[in-house]
């Protein structure tokens, strides 16, 4: 099958997955496919897929605590040149304000605590929202044409 650039935005894609780490790549793959035929640099794509991976890992691990009966809900959409991805879990939620800074000297050598930092580094915008029925939503946004190649990207 050949790549055909989408003539217009194809509308939001929603998917839901059971809480298994193996499913992270399926979602990443679908997101990559969604960008096919769009003018997105390989760099931009690489980093936003890493941010997506981190958000999914958190939803599966911290949110749904790997309870395979709980699901992860992903919605992806490209609107006006911005990719927006929402990741929802069915967990207890958390207060993002309590998350520690992984760059603080006392945290630098910790074995965890870098996921959200990576998301913020590689995306243009990261928003958290506690859901009414429990669970957390995280919304990642990236301008696809911005060429905003933050610190994470080489020149």
């Amino acid at each position: 099958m050949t790549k055909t650039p989408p003539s217009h935005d194809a509308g939001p894609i929603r998917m839901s997955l059971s809480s298994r780490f193996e499913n992270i790549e399926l979602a990443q793959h679908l997101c990559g496919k969604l960008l096919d035929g769009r003018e997105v640099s390989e760099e931009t794509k690489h980093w936003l897929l890493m941010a997506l991976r981190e958000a999914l890992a958190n939803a599966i691990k911290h949110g749904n605590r790997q309870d395979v009966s709980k699901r992860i809900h992903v919605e992806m959409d490209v609107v006006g040149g911005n990719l927006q991805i929402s990741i929802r879990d069915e967990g207890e939620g958390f207060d993002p304000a309590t998350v520690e800074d992984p760059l603080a000297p006392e945290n630098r050598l910790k074995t965890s605590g870098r996921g959200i930092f990576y998301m913020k580094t590689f995306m243009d915008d990261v928003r958290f929202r506690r859901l009414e029925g429990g669970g957390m939503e995280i919304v990642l946004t990236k301008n696809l044409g911005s060429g905003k190649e933050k610190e994470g990207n080489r020149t």
Partner: protein
Amino acid sequence: MKANVREVQGVAVVDLKGKITIGSGDVQLREVINGLVEKGKKNILINMQEVTTIDSSGIGELVGCYTSVTNKGGKLKLLHLPPKINDVLTVTQLITVFDVYESESEALATYAA
């Protein structure tokens, strides 16, 4: 993830291959390094050349390995860091924590010092 351990000039060179990501490779990496530490190996060089993907869990495990080797008085260093993994270590200010080499022989020589 696949890990192959070679013994070169008294250094355990660990060639990693594939993904070091949550649920696949992260725990495995820790087990390999812990196994070496338990066998009394103190000089460890991790060859990252064929690592295709790493995430925050993989980075976390790498840091954990570094700490446990260092605590035993050993040295854990990195070889052939792919550019994107270099970036991932850089943004979290870990790149200065690790000794990173581009050449295996050069890296091996530093353990003798």
